[in-house]
């Protein structure tokens, strides 16, 4: 097990993620192997999904 303290970047990311969880309920991701913090669940915008849907090519 690695018990090192978080560096500045990791600490900032975790604080941002916790605020996101408190404000909007966004999920925090945990590494299933060692329970370390992986980041936040990546949300996908409507625009990204809909642009991809509307440009699905014809299939043969």
């Amino acid at each position, binding site marked *: *097990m*690695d*018990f090192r*303290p*978080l560096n500045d970047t*990791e*600490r900032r990311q*975790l*604080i941002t*993620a*916790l*605020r996101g*969880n*408190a404000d909007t*309920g966004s*999920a*925090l*991701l*945990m*590494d*299933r192997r*060692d*329970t*370390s*913090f*992986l*980041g936040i*669940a*990546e*949300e*996908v915008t*409507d625009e*990204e*999904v*809909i*642009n*991809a*849907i*509307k*440009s*699905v*090519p*014809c*299939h*043969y």
Partner: protein
Amino acid sequence: MGKLQRAVTDLRGEPKVVRQTPPILTDAGARASYSPLQRVRIADEVARVLFDEYGAHRKSERGEEETGWLLLGLRDTKEAIALATLPAGAEREAGEAHIRFNSGAQAVASRIVRQADRRLALLGVVHTHPGSLRHPSDGDFRGDISWVGQLRGGDGVFGIGTADGKYARPSDELWQPRANMFCRGDLCYSWYSLRESARSYQALPAEIAPGSDLALPLRAVWPILEEHAERLDRLARQQAKVEFECLTGSEHAALALMVPLADEGRSLRVVLTGKEVRYFLAREGSLLAADLSEPHADRGVYRLLAELAGEA
């Protein structure tokens, strides 16, 4: 909890967030960086819907045509998890050798499905082939290779349905003649991935996992979606807080959309059925029917908004 909890405890400078709202921990392995797809996991209800609807399609008047679905789901580091199917729609353009989906209805459907989980992304396309071609065609490749760059990881999931009976079994149980195939009765699906800049599709091992098809409740209102898709999509783009709800409890299915107003607790509600569009004002716990005959939902919403603005 382990290291994450210790890290949280260590953040003494930001105690309020941590103590008041415990974090929701998921066991997901998603990261921003993606590796090439190594597997697709398919929710068991998604698999059932794909087989059921392919079987029903073959018995329909248009059964000789190709058909298909879009797959929504989660893109993990090395795998995709298929959690919803969006059908081609009655207004699809199809023949014996091609299929083009009614993307307008699928776009609105994606908005509705993703209301519950904004992580859901477009994973890829499932379509059927006549005969025994269990692999995407050259024509499929020409379109898909220039399209997959829009997907998470630049990698898409592609399913090919066939019904030539080569792997037919009398029972209705799913079985796998190969790691990238699932068969039931006389129907088969073969799974592939295609990555941006790749020269060909790769066979993609598939597994079934417990889970629902998150788009299945929308089947009852799909004709309504197809009829009103363009205007509903426009309204959703213009009014960021519009929400949709599928009403399936009564005799006739209906699609409802809610437009919140500036005053707390007030909203406009539009209920679309196969025959009519009705408008309501929700205010202080009561629902007031609006005397408005307007078949176009977006126009009706803006006429009501204008009237309410006039009263303010």
